[in-house]
């Protein structure tokens, strides 16, 4: 269970809070979607939960563990799929996965077997020994995902895992994540693909201006929102049509 209490983040030099007093409870084995326009605070919230940035105030725990007290245990407990391809372009898919797997203490034949098995599962075994440089966006996304789940994390954070990929790759990724969830992994993900979130997530929270403006099961949110036929309607109703460009 992820327990977030009054978490806020204000970046140096910024006038506004990127995340403001968020309280949230994410249950075990949930697929929880953090949705919101650009600059709403989704990535900031997920980055705090992954120990990449420090909250300005507030606390959170993941399955009872905190970074202050259980840093290494917690890092072993979670996996993160960053929005960017966090891979070495001049190394092959296998070499990248072997390295990142080793950082979780995995080694030897067990690691090799696990890598090959997962590559095969995501349709990449044939390309295992090709350099990442030569991969398409969809292939990189899949390797990026595998690098984060080799150690079988209990909680998996995904920041826009399907951005910039074709429909086929997106389906493979979503099916794989659903399978992980079935096997007990809690999934927290951010996305701009509202249709994808509608069918994929057990619960979603819509964030705007650093605050959660609504949360619940996608179907309930649609039902309780006048004139809404899908999650996108709910989203537009709540966040408005104004552009959210920021720099």
């Amino acid at each position: 269970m992820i327990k977030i209490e009054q978490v806020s983040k204000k970046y140096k030099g910024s006038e506004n809070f990127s995340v403001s007093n968020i309280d949230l409870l994410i249950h075990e084995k949930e697929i929880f979607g953090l949705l919101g326009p650009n600059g709403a605070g989704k990535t900031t919230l997920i980055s705090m939960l992954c120990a990449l940035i420090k909250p300005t105030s507030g606390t959170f725990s993941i399955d009872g563990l905190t970074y202050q007290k259980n840093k290494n245990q917690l890092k072993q407990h979670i996996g993160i799929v960053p929005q960017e391809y966090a891979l070495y372009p001049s190394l092959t898919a296998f070499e990248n996965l072997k390295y990142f797997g080793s950082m979780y203490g995995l080694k030897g034949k067990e690691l090799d077997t696990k890598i090959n098995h997962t590559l095969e599962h995501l349709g990449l075994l044939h390309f295992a020994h090709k350099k990442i440089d030569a991969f398409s966006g969809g292939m990189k996304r899949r390797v990026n995902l595998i690098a984060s789940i080799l150690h079988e994390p209990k909680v998996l954070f995904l920041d826009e895992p399907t951005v910039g990929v074709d429909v086929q790759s997106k389906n493979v990724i979503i099916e794989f994540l659903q399978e992980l969830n079935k096997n007990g992994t809690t999934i927290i993900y951010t996305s701009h693909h509202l249709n994808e979130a509608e069918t994929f997530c057990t619960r979603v929270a819509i964030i705007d201006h650093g605050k959660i403006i609504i949360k619940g099961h996608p179907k309930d949110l649609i039902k309780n929102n006048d004139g809404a036929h899908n999650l996108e309607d709910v989203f537009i109703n709540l966040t408005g049509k104004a552009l959210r460009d920021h720099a």
Partner: protein
Amino acid sequence: MHKLIASTYKEFLLLTRDIGGIAILFIMPLVLIITITLIQDSTFKTVTDYKIPILIVNNDNGHVSKTILKGLNESNTFEINLKETESTARDLVFKGKYQLAIIIPENLSSGLDKKVSQNVDGIIEKFGLEETTDNLQQEVIKGKEVKLYFDPATQLTFKNSVKNGIDKMVAKIETESIYKAFQEQLTDDPSEVIFDTESYITFNEILPQKDNEEYIPNSVQHNVPAWTLFAIFFIIVPLSINIVKEKSQGTFVRLRTNPVSYAIVLGGKTLVYLMVCLIQFILMLLVGLYVFPAIGLPNLDVSGRLPLLFVVAVFAGLAAIGLGLLLGTIAKTQEQSAPFGATFVVILAALGGVWVPVFVMPKIMQTLSQISPMNWGLNAFYDVFLRNGSLLDILPEISLLLLFFLATTLIAIVYNEKKNAL
């Protein structure tokens, strides 16, 4: 340990996948050392083997100017060109056509003879060997001036060496003239040897010895350690770029979420880049041993010194790597790390005495050079290469290099921890 091995292997793969980078890492230092040694060797030859064209305006045409010309010819340093007038010679030198013009004044020989005779006569009179002459009748002989014109671009060391050479030559001519004047006064037989004109005081350079064999240092023994060290320290540029690249391509973000310490990540880089330093060092030694003699440069003598040379190379490499780790950790972009790294290495080299010996630097720079790791490394290399030093002799320098590595790496780790503290 397993994570350190994995990190080291990953760094090895990253390095070996970049063929262009490897070529630069290994070939450029070799090109540098060959180029610098050839240039310095040819500069050396300019003063010894090759002849520098100079101008002489001989207004004297007596025995003194003949002796000066003979001395200059015999020095094998200069190619002598005679000119008629001082103004022509001066213009040519000041325009940079010639490095030097020597203007020998009129009546230098006769003036010197008269002056010496006058002095010798005076001395002999004092001893009562000759009739006393009226002092009032003595002619007043003014001193003569040999003028030197140098090309304004001429280096100070060359100027000083020429001035010293001419000064020495003039002193010798004067001494010989005095002896000759005495000889003429004391005997009518010119073949009779009264004075032994050979120098009483001579110089003999005593070289360091090992196993009763003298070490004779040459330009290569001086150049190889200095420029090898320079090349080793350049490792901070690719190393800092490697770290900055990790940040920009996102892999560093992933590593921060992994249960691995920054020290392990840096440990992998340290081991691989230390190997690179040692390979660079081996290649440069091989160039000194086999390529230099083949292109007419002196041979690099490493006999009996290899183990200690490797010790110095390891510690110098570690110091350079520590600096690279710190720079890469602090820098945010390659545009920050690469120019800063390259410029900083040049500053450290200058401070360390790679170009100009530390003892000729101003006092403040001499003090600053004491905190340059390149100075410690260079001294350790010179201890081994030129001073026949033992492990005990280089212990202070290699200890400082090790401390420098530990301090810079620790600062990098603390900086990273502080920046990413939760």
